[in-house]
């Protein structure tokens, strides 16, 4: 039976939705069914060897029911519990103060390059590519290459009937060299994923990390890699773009529309850009995805809006109703955030930061952060550790230039970015 790995089995829904739809039509004023099935296969790498293969299939249904303008929610993976899930969604509306009158009629943007075919033994080959790209003498300690196919369907009482198929390929490797370690990530929609580049990067930075010295405290020009940029922005900045946080007083950008908040940088949320990881024809509640200029040359132009909070903000949704997991309510979250800044040839003498430790401890309300710099390079010299701390709004005022090549790390599509005169502690 060996040698069949990596090839995706045919993916299809098995849960029968007609009975729950009938139940909801009869027992609620409005309803929505979010139906998703995912098949994942992953190869695990441990200490330079292909360790084992993991395969998963999960199908789930998330129901939103509206009764008297109140929303209830229920999720299940159990095909025998669909009606029970509908009953719970309807029943919980009694205590709910989550207000909605209806669901979107649905929209669809044209997006290409979100479904790729992955053939034959590719997954095992992929694991071997990762291992062999790591430099001799460096330990590819822990890694994974994962292929996932998702089929998503949204049905609601406003007539939306949307379906999409997407694939994701993602990889991670942590390399260890003596007392040093570094990791890197890669992702794509198909087997064109840059596994070799990822492995080489992790391997190089692991060696740097082992040899590195501590940095002298002081002011430096700092360059953030795409990985470091995403880690920092995702936790310290993106929550401030959510219109839900704006309405609830949790965003420091609440009264800053049309004001200059950053240096010469643009941030665009684009949910329909071909081939990007978070692109999709529609968001997780059926609104068409779109391109939204959040910050244009440093000036705050717009916020991200899902169906409910767009309503509260008296604006149109921007296709940012995203479910973090298939069992969660849609929340206002970014899709692909494109970072655009004047192109610099190279970054010259600067502290290049590969990744941070502890980015999730940043303060999303104030934008303050204090992070451990895991491997970095200064003027060709490896740096083992140091602390970068400050405030994301102050940091982005000091942006100077960016690199040519853009890389996607989860929600962020960016080149390296250079900031001037940033304080580093030893």
């Amino acid at each position, binding site marked *: *039976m*060996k040698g069949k*790995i990596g090839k995706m089995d045919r993916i299809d829904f098995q849960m029968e939705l007609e009975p729950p739809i009938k139940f909801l039509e009869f027992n609620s004023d409005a309803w929505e069914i979010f139906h998703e099935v995912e098949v994942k296969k992953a190869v695990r790498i441990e*200490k330079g060897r*292909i*360790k*084992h*293969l*993991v*395969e*998963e*299939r*999960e199908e789930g249904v998330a129901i939103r029911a509206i009764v008297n303008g109140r929303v209830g*929610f*229920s*999720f*299940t*993976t*159990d*095909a025998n519990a669909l009606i029970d*899930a509908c009953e*719970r969604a309807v029943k*919980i509306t*009694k*205590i*709910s*103060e*989550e207000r909605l009158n209806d669901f979107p009629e649905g929209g669809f943007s044209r997006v290409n390059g979100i479904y790729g075919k992955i053939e034959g033994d590719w997954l095992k080959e992929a694991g071997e590519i990762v291992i062999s790209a790591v430099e001799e003498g460096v330990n590819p*300690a*822990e890694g*994974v290459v994962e292929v996932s196919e998702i089929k998503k369907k949204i049905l609601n009482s406003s007539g939306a009937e949307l379906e999409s198929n997407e694939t994701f390929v993602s990889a991670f490797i*942590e390399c*260890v060299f003596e*007392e*040093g*370690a570094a990791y890197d990530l890669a992702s794509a929609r198909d087997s064109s994923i840059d596994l070799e580049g990822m492995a080489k990067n992790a391997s190089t930075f692991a060696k740097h990390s082992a040899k590195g010295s501590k940095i002298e405290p002081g002011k430096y020009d700092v360059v953030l890699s795409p990985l470091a940029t995403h880690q920092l922005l995702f936790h310290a900045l993106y929550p401030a773009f959510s219109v839900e946080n704006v309405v*609830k*007083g*949790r965003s420091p950008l609440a009264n800053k529309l049309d004001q200059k908040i950053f240096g010469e940088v643009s941030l665009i949320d684009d949910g329909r850009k071909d081939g990007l990881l978070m692109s999709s024809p529609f968001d997780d509640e059926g609104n068409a995805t779109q391109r939204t200029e959040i910050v244009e040359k440093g000036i705050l132009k717009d916020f991200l809006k899902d169906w409910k909070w767009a309503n509260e903000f008296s604006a149109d949704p921007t296709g940012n109703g995203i479910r973090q997991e298939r*069992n969660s*309510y849609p929340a206002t979250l970014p899709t692909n955030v494109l970072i655009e800044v004047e192109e610099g040839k190279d970054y010259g003498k600067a502290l290049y930061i590969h990744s941070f*430790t*502890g*980015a*999730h*401890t940043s*303060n999303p*309300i104030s934008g*303050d*952060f*204090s*992070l*451990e710099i*895991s491997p970095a390079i200064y003027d060709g010299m490896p740096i083992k*550790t140091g*602390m970068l*701390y*400050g*405030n994301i709004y102050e940091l982005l005022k000091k942006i100077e230039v960016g690199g040519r090549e853009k890389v996607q790390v989860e929600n962020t599509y960016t080149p390296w970015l250079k900031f001037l005169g940033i304080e580093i*502690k030893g």
Partner: protein
Amino acid sequence: MSFYDIRYLKTRSLTLNLENGSIEKPKHENFAGKSFRVLKNGSWGFFNGLVDDKTGLELAERNTLEGEVEIDESSYSGHYEMKQKINVDSIDIEEKVKLLKEIEKELKADYIVSVRISYLENIREFHYKNSFGDEVSYVVPRTGIAIQVVGKDTTLQFLSKRLFRAGGYEVVSGNEPFEMASDLVSKLKELLRALSPPSGRMPVLMDPSLGGVFIHEAFGHAVEADHLLRGASILRETGIKVGPEELYVYDDPLIEEFGFFPFDDEGVKARRKAVIEAGIFKEFLHSRETAKKMKGMPGNSRSQGVAEPLIRMSNTYIEEGDYSLDELLESVGNGVYLVGTRGGETNPATGYFQFSAQYGYLIINGEIGKMIRDVSLSGHTLEILKKIKVGKGLRFDPGFCGKAGQLVPVADGAPYTVVEAFVGGG
């Protein structure tokens, strides 16, 4: 096939969020999942999905490769059901909502701009069987309340506290949530006027909440044997001196805190592990696989849902020592007192860790002074415990620990402690 096991998991949960006076996003979830694992030719193969046992095992077997894996063959059977003193199902949902609204009344002040109170109940019903003929099952409830408040003065700041434990409605029905609320109100007022922290190496007094996260991040992760076997742990052998004689650290899944479990996800009966005794590193945490290889005891394999089991902590804590709080303050002299946590991160391969406090105070000449905010702490696993001073007042704080993309409930505990570490902040 030399071994197989099958897990069948059912969970049901209810989540309520009271946000600024309204019950938002109320949610029911009914999860059912099955996981099949086969060991053949020294290699694992996994399949997760709701299929019959025969199909599941065949699909898992299809994913085996070749390797050298052997496992600890400890054998256990049994059933455990944690009794709820007040069954969550015996309390109407309206009453749960009322409790949240009562707590919210404590959270009124002109500087508070946003309040979120969440209620969570979750019943985990676990069934396990393997090719030894073992059968294990348990039912464990978890219940809790989390509060987050956002305040505004010249800056936006937030504070949060969590009360989550294994148990029924009794976890939240006492006075504790109200005490949490009134503490948050008074601390938030101070925090809005707090100073930026000093930076540099200095003595740090940690409250029990921060001390718990400290032992989890700074030492606990390095004790998970999978890191070592990948060649990615700074901690390579037991029997070495890592701290003073007064230092005792345990991981105990049998304490009825948030990290409680009676059997792990490999069907192994839970037991307390001595991580550090009299300052000597005693025991790694193991799965069946790593226990066999390193002649240890299995029992710390855990999964989010039915994902692949990983070696995880449970309730990890520093035992109480002899120092009084006054003696600890005196020993600090000039330094900081740090309280609460926003989480942390560590890299077991390098030993560097970073985590953030919710707030802190300056300590000047052994006396607690002005409040400081956005402060983080970093250091190195092998250095940090050497000079730890352990006081009294052991208390646990609940949380979700992430590893390789999986979250599991844990609790971290400590009395008041003093360490010397690098402190930084925004």
